[in-house]
């Protein structure tokens, strides 16, 4: 049973008070809070299992290696991948996208090729492609969005061509909350022979994910937005594609052999997947923390997580829609969006709004949320953003709405 009141008991930080008020944490799109189970798993690792992985025959190394490999397995099952070989641990979603941009873009794309990104992408899905395009001479094209904050599919279809090498889209916008139909986009990309890379940073923590059902080639996401620790992220890639890709980083553990006799021929043989893409000592504790986070989410059920967050966003939209002096962005239909709502108060910038909400103990993010092209589209500099997770409550939204009403009145008197 999904009971947010019970869930809250697992999150010690939610007992905090800020400026004398109970903490209301509405900044989950930036990072989620961590349940005691995840905190304990990381603590236990360092207390009882800490050892480097994959290069030791002793007991601790074997135990740490087993846990680390189990974590790959858990992630693979959680997102519907075929095997752990399709799961590469990285630092975060940004690094996962950079891995693809460099390993694929730098080695396989060139002049005449095109990469499609959308106006609603996070900078992490825009900037790496632009950096690599400067070196390789391919074009980065931007797919438009509609006024209500969805990908303009007509524009996407018109920009797809035999020159398109990869289509990069966010599964869920980190500003608008829009859930994009990645299965449909994958089909369109594959029809012209292009890959699809999905930024799942805002979807994997909140929605059931099935990479094989969606038929996507790459999925990037971060552990810290889904109850796990910071510093661990995931790149999913289809095995047959990863197998053919060049490594991103070189070093220990990503090779199966290295010979110093370079002049006698090819002297480096890469390791098997996924280790070929995991150079150097990995974040073992982070992987174990992420595995525990996934166990936690699986116990709740991702369908239940999705259903609950849709209720919260429905309630928010209803309440915000009735407020004069507040504008919010993205689809009006809650079934089309996750628990993210960006908004602005008339006469205030996002930072002023967030600063005032902070006085009520309400933590919201402000700024361009690393999505400046999206803000340019809406002709705004920045916004404030609430974003929910499994432990947020309707009562907290009520406090937020009442605070916002007071802020609107106060602003009218400035």
């Amino acid at each position, binding site marked *: 049973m999904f009971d947010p009141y019970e869930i809250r008991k697992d999150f010690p930080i939610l007992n905090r008070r800020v*400026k004398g008020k109970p903490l209301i944490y509405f900044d989950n799109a930036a990072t989620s809070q961590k349940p005691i189970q995840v905190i304990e798993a990381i603590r236990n690792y360092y207390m009882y299992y800490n050892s480097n992985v994959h290069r030791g025959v002793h007991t601790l190394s074997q135990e740490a290696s087993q846990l680390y490999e189990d974590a790959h397995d858990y992630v693979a099952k959680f997102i519907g991948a075929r095997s752990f070989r399709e799961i590469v641990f990285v630092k975060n979603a940004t690094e996962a996208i950079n891995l693809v941009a460099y390993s694929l873009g730098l080695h396989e794309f060139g002049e005449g090729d095109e990469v499609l990104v959308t106006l609603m992408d996070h900078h992490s899905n825009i900037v790496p492609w632009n950096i690599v395009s400067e070196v390789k001479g391919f074009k980065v094209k931007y797919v438009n969005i509609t006024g209500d904050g969805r990908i303009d599919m007509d524009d996407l279809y018109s920009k797809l061509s035999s020159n398109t090498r990869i289509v990069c889209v966010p599964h869920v916008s980190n500003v608008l909350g829009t859930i994009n139909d990645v299965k449909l986009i994958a089909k369109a990309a594959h029809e012209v022979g292009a890959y699809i890379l999905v930024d799942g940073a805002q979807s994997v923590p909140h929605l059931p994910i099935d990479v094989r059902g969606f038929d996507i080639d790459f999925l990037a996401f971060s552990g810290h937005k889904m109850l796990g620790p910071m510093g661990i992220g995931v790149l999913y890639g289809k095995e047959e594609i990863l197998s053919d890709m060049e490594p991103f980083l070189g070093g220990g553990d990503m090779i199966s052999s290295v010979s110093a006799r370079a002049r006698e021929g090819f002297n480096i043989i890469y390791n098997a997947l996924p280790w070929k893409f995991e150079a150097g000592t990995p974040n073992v504790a982070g992987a174990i923390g992420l595995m525990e986070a996934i166990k936690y989410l699986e116990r709740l059920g991702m369908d239940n997580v999705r259903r609950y967050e849709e209720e919260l966003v429905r309630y928010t939209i209803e309440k915000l829609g009735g407020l004069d002096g507040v504008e919010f962005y993205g689809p009006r239909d809650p079934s089309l969006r996750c628990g993210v709502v960006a908004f602005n108060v008339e006469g205030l910038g996002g930072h002023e709004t967030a*600063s005032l909400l902070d006085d009520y103990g309400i933590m919201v993010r402000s*700024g*361009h949320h690393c999505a400046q092209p999206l*803000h340019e589209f809406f002709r705004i500099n*920045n916004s404030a953003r609430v974003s929910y997770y499994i432990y947020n409550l309707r009562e907290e939204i009520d406090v937020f709405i009442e605070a916002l009403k007071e802020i609107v009145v106060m602003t009218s008197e400035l």
Partner: protein
Amino acid sequence: MNYRSFIKKIEKLCGEKKGYMVLFKDDYSEAALSRIYRVFGVSNVRPLVRVRRDGLEFNIFRTGKIIIKGVDKESDLWSILDDIYRDVD
């Protein structure tokens, strides 16, 4: 004590082409803010007081923060603060 020791942190605003946040240390925010209120001739009855002066916008938060818009460079920000706190030692 130099007024700069009142300041906990300054940060360029994300999503504002020209803007900075100045955050005062808890122990000194009252002294820092009362000076600003006095310089601008405003009172602290509201959580947020906004003052526009010389093309700049000062958003003064009672809880110890100012958001200054219209400032391009950090060196300009320091000049503005130096001016406000000119004779505070």
